[in-house]
């Protein structure tokens, strides 16, 4: 599932990480309370075992095809291409997945693993609610009780997803500690896990957390890049000049990037949320505006103050509103294999509307951030250029919030 071919067959071997300690260079690792260490080690062993089990792989493939709707197509966004006036823009349509985002690729893998490990209870954290909905969905399908922790602020701004999760039978616990956003939901999920260690499986939604989560989530999400790479070669006979994705914790970006890491002519571009602008301090751009630290089980770039206290992230998009980033992104950033840029709330709002009008695709606010940089990149690369962007989620969930921001009463 992960690329474990020997390092010497690849030009840069940057895809070979993590090492046995769960490190991507200096990033990653297992920074958890002692109570959770046995669980983390058990999970790692179970995952390694599942990876090698053809029955597990077959079950994954069947559900990905018949339940999630894989493979998702790639689509030539002709009118966006025209509008941006440069490189051809192709969208990987992961928003067409069951539940409306890429999140289910990972949830399916983890819930199947939970079932295999005999765990009888699922917990998850969620920001925008996409991961919560995907987890609740798969948990419903396999009849496993599911509890989702969601920041109280997010519960308010993502009401439709909260109701969806409840319909799916999940218990949604609003988290009021801290600022009531994604990081607080993750704190609370960790507190639950440390209390219910023996029967509970924690389905982390992004490529962060203690090892093996960053590698495991990446492996489950790499289906995005594997499919897209093969589809590009099949349809266009060439690889894109750039692969672009938005980044909160970074799971859709890592899933898109990983199969392209050894293709050195493919630029990998991650778009963080700049909120009101990085210079204002109200943003969620951990790589551009943060520095290395330790939080939620891993060492990575974090938004923090001069005393190492975590600073609240800000983004219009609840799914990007996180003060950290997956450790593999931190590693690819330092190794200069991937480029990281950002887009503001305002730009995301503009792209949300533009993409909807021109392509008839309502993007989630998260990938709308990526589109803003695709616009610049299209001009930079010119008409011969080819850009692949992951449309990681659909924007139905954001309609009430966008309406309110546009002053429209629904």
């Amino acid at each position, binding site marked *: 599932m992960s690329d474990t071919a020997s390092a010497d067959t690849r030009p840069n071997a940057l895809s070979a990480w993590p090492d046995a*300690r769960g490190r991507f260079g200096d990033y990653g*690792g*297992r*920074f*958890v*309370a*002692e*109570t*959770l*260490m*046995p*669980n983390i080690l058990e999970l790692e062993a179970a995952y390694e075992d599942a990876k090698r089990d053809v029955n597990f792989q077959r079950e994954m493939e069947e559900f990905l095809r018949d339940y999630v709707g894989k493979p998702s197509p790639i689509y030539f966004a002709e009118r966006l291409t025209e509008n941006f006036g440069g490189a051809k823009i192709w969208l990987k349509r992961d928003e067409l997945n069951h539940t409306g985002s890429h999140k289910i690729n990972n949830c399916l893998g983890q819930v199947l693993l939970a079932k295999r490990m005999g765990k009888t209870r699922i917990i998850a954290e969620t920001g925008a609610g996409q991961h919560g909905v995907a987890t609740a969905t798969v948990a419903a399908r396999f009849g496993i009780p599911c509890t989702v922790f969601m920041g109280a602020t997010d519960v308010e701004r993502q009401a439709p997803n909260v109701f969806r999760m409840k319909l799916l039978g999940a218990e949604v616990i609003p988290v009021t*500690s*801290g600022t009531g956003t994604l*990081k*607080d939901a*993750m*704190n609370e999920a*960790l*507190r639950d896990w*440390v*209390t*219910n*260690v*023996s029967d509970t499986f924690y389905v982390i939604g992004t490529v962060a957390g203690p090892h093996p989560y960053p590698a495991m989530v990446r492996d489950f999400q790499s289906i995005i890049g594997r499919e897209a790479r093969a589809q590009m070669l099949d349809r266009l006979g060439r690889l894109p000049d750039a692969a672009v994705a938005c980044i909160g914790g970074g799971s859709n970006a890592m899933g898109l990037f990983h199969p392209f890491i050894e293709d050195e002519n493919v630029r990998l571009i991650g778009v963080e949320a700049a909120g009101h602008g990085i210079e204002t301090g109200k943003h969620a751009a951990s790589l551009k505006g943060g520095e290395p*630290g*330790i*939080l*939620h*089980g891993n*060492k990575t770039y*974090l938004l*923090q103050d001069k*005393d*190492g*206290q*975590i600073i609240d992230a800000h983004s219009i998009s609840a799914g990007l509103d996180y003060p950290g980033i997956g450790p593999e992104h931190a590693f690819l950033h330092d190794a200069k294999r991937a480029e990281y840029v950002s887009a503001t709330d305002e730009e995301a709002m503009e792209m949300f509307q533009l993409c909807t009008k021109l392509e008839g695709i309502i993007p989630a606010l998260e990938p709308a951030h990526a589109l803003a940089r695709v616009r610049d990149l299209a001009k930079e690369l010119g008409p011969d250029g080819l850009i692949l962007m992951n449309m990681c989620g659909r924007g139905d969930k954001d309609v009430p919030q966008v309406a309110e921001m546009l002053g429209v009463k629904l």
Partner: protein
Amino acid sequence: MTNRITTRFNELEAYGRPGFVAYMMAGDGDSQALLNALPEAGADVIELGMPFTDPMADGPSIQASALRALDAGMTLKGVFDQAAKFREHDTDTPLVLMGYANPIHHMGFENFARQAEKAGVDGLICVDIPPEEDSELRTALEAHGIALIRLATPTTDDKRLETVVENTSGFVYYVSTTGVTGAASGMAQEVGAAVSRVKSASGLPVVVGFGVRTPEQAAAIAAEADAVVVGSAIVDAMHEGGVAAATELVHTLSQAAHGAKK
């Protein structure tokens, strides 16, 4: 060199009585006054909490306490200042800092260890750095004579225990229950068996904490261990009734612990 931690546990052993460990949060209320008053109130060892924005192993009491301390402007430098002031008139009571990795990492492990030594700190409990990840921190602390105190929990089986006790010093903190601070405490009988296991594996004193709130619980747990730790209840008393209420509680709890039959 015999340090304060070893000396204190040797004394307790000689008296044949269990010790009492008081946890408090630096910067929450008049914490300097409470810190200074703790030995007199009966604390044999003090754990001084370093506030962090995201204390994911703590329950509601200590979470809220940390946020109050941060709002009041507490920093790591402020923690060292309080420790140094405490040392001006108490040279015997072991002082152990307890907190999370990021502020320590941000200051730099070596810098942290140097300042901690200067302030008269004896040990560190870092909740989210397990043995697998602590070599860099441990090396820095050892160079400055600070003990890195590890945690053992009900999920620590015999095999894992070997990893936990390897290279540890000072004492071992046994977390009596799976969960966050301030939740229900473990059953005394189970705790007793676990403590013997950890003690024989580590050769170090074992203190037991998490969820101990009342004198009865303190006595029951103390009877099974070298010392019992109380945190959330003291933090709550401090918040609700100030230094007087917190010292009064420490007095009551430490008497119960000291009177427990080993």
